[in-house]
């Protein structure tokens, strides 16, 4: 396969400008991620220590096989919600290796308000179990939660994808034969009690672990019964009398040791054989990605330069290199896995949309996983393009992409605006994993366009009412809209709302996709076939 010939000039002023801006952006991201992971009020940390509990990340560290990769997901979930009160949405999720098995991990973060579930916590746990379902990944739950955050119950309890979905997903996982283990370190109250109950295996720590539908205060209020935590739902009650949990453990460390031994008993299910070759590092230095990413959301760049810094040997077999050139399509290997890449090199025209749809069909025919690299402002607009059927050509791409039987992965490399997001496998299209770079922006349109549109509407409204045009009012509308949009367009807002599976440093993209591809192999390919293509 041909190596991409990079025409990037690391000595150029533009490269250096981009590089410094991107490095600063990534440093800010890492700093924010560190804070979300580790900075907790001393009071909460002391309380956990007094109870003899480990911090959630200390538990994970002891559970995972030493020296193996752990791909944490949505580390900045809820970073712009609740005034920052719920870092990481009060939970940790990710893919790791336990006793040699690839598993999904879900840990309640009891170092934040006793591990109470905020609405975003529910969204994060449901997404984690969706990933487990889509990829048939066994799950280990590390339970320690005070239960739902009651002041916000209407935003976490009643709807289809809220708390109940956790238990629905757990049930479906079990039906598919995908194993689950719960390690009960702290409380599992109310709905949370069903997590160990619906797990195939459950270990509970004596003294601190407890499982019950209602805690002592609620029991007293409901029936007048006065009972201690341990008597109501402690380790001995559940492992000796009720049978709701299987293994008693004298300490957290013992619970983790028992958990690792349980996972070690699990059969190793055969993986879907993706085509794989020997691994080769990229020829071009991935650090140069920082010099490619423009410091301006409107600036385009050659996505081949990005591909050259992600894939094995920087080798790329480009499909239709001279047709529909605003969508770069082709085969490459990533950590040895054969993948089909679709990457935006400009706005999607009729020919680029047709090329994309055809290439997706080729990958489905060939059993090749799809990787979408987004930097898209949409499909081309205007009479000429409508007359040539840009809408139905875009629809073909969406049809082929939606109905794909091969796993899909999406990386938000820069802008994601308008309908291009759909064709390029945006969040709604069930990419197995979707990662964003810190410079990413997403919205139905860009901030400047929205501000200009609304300022224009305001001007017309004033004219209609026969009022004097005050430029400061118009400017005010423009600036207010721009500010509101910029906040909501940012990657931080998107990841806060779990529109992705996490922001990643661009140079980690290759590794994140490698772990994702390996995880995706646990599920069989989907059903073959498409709906009606509008020709």
């Amino acid at each position: 396969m041909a190596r991409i010939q990079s025409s990037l000039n690391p000595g150029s002023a533009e490269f250096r400008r981009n590089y410094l801006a991107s490095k600063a952006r990534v440093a800010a991201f890492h700093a924010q991620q560190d804070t979300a992971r580790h900075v907790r009020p001393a009071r909460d940390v002391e309380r956990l220590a007094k109870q003899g509990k480990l911090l959630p990340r200390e538990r994970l560290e002891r559970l995972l096989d030493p020296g193996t990769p752990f791909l944490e997901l949505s580390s900045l979930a809820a970073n712009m919600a609740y005034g920052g009160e719920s870092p990481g949405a009060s939970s940790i999720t990710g893919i790791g290796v336990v006793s040699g098995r690839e598993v999904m991990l879900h840990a309640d973060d009891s170092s934040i308000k006793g591990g109470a579930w905020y609405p975003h916590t529910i969204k994060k746990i449901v997404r984690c179990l969706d990933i487990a379902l889509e990829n048939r990944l066994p799950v280990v739950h590390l339970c320690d939660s005070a239960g739902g955050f009651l002041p916000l119950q209407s935003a976490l309890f009643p709807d289809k994808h809220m708390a109940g979905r956790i238990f629905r997903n757990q049930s479906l996982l079990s039906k598919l034969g995908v194993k689950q283990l719960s390690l009960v370190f702290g409380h599992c109250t109310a709905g949370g009690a069903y997590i160990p109950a619906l797990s195939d295996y459950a270990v509970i720590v004596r003294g601190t672990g407890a499982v019950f539908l209602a805690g002592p205060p609620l029991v007293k209020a409901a029936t007048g019964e006065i009972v201690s935590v341990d008597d109501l739902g402690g380790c001995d009650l559940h492992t000796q009398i009720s049978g709701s949990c299987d293994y008693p453990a004298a300490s957290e460390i013992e619970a983790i040791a028992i958990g690792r031994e349980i996972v070690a008993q699990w059969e190793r299910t055969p993986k879907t054989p993706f085509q794989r070759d020997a691994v080769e590092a990229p020829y071009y230095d991935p650090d140069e990605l920082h010099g490619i990413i423009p410091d301006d959301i409107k600036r385009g760049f050659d996505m081949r330069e990005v591909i050259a810094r992600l894939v094995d040997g920087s080798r790329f077999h480009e499909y239709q290199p001279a047709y529909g050139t605003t969508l770069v399509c082709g085969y490459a290997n990533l950590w040895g896995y054969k993948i089909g890449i679709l990457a935006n090199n400009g706005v999607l025209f009729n020919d680029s949309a047709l090329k994309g749809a055809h290439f997706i069909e080729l990958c489905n025919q060939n059993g090749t996983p799809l990787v979408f690299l987004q930097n898209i402002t949409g499909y081309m607009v205007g009479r000429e393009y409508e007359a040539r059927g840009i809408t139905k050509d875009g629809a073909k791409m969406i049809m082929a992409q939606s109905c794909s039987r091969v796993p899909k992965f999406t990386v938000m490399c820069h802008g994601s605006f308008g309908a291009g997001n759909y064709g390029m496998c945006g969040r709604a299209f069930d990419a197995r994993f979707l990662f964003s770079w810190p410079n990413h922006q997403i919205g139905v349109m860009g901030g400047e366009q929205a501000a200009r549109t609304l300022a224009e509407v305001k001007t017309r409204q004033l004219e209609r009412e026969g009022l004097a045009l005050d430029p400061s009012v118009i400017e005010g509308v423009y600036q207010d809209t721009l500010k509101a949009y910029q906040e909501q367009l940012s990657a931080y807002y998107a990841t806060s709302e779990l529109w992705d599976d996490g922001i990643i440093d661009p140079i980690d993209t290759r590794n994140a996709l490698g772990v994702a591809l390996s995880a995706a192999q646990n599920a069989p390919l989907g059903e073959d076939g498409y709906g009606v293509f509008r020709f």
Partner: protein
Amino acid sequence: MPTQLTLDGITSEVEIISRRPHLNLRVDDLLCRVEEPQTRGEGPFDITINQQHHRVWRAREGDRIHVHLDGKTYSVGYQEAVRAAAQSGHASNEIRAEMPGMVVELRVTMGDEVALGDPLLVIESMKMQITVAAPRAGLIETIHVEPNTSFQKGTLLVLLRAVVE
């Protein structure tokens, strides 16, 4: 299908005519009969080309192979056929707009000499700024647009002229 090899920067066309019983090659206009017991790997090996025996050393460095033969070292590169074909399209002197848009910035003035890939101007279309690069080396003959003006699809933006040596 013929393959392109570069030998110390000079491109040659190599075609395999037959593999058995001996490897018969066409290198540009030259026909060669090659007998080589060891076809892969690095280090010394023996090769017979048109009944002449040679002792050859071979070392690989990334995509290049260094060959030591009769007291001289050659650097051999392999040019991928797909890429070569994609790049072989005839580059025009006329740089026309591929879609309607607006000129953001001119990066060249009339009379400038440009190399392949040099930025000529920045345009904005569909909310995205795109740098239009020189499709070939040349002189800027004329510039037909100005900053902050819009253009239609197919509009002539810049005209190049070949540099006469």
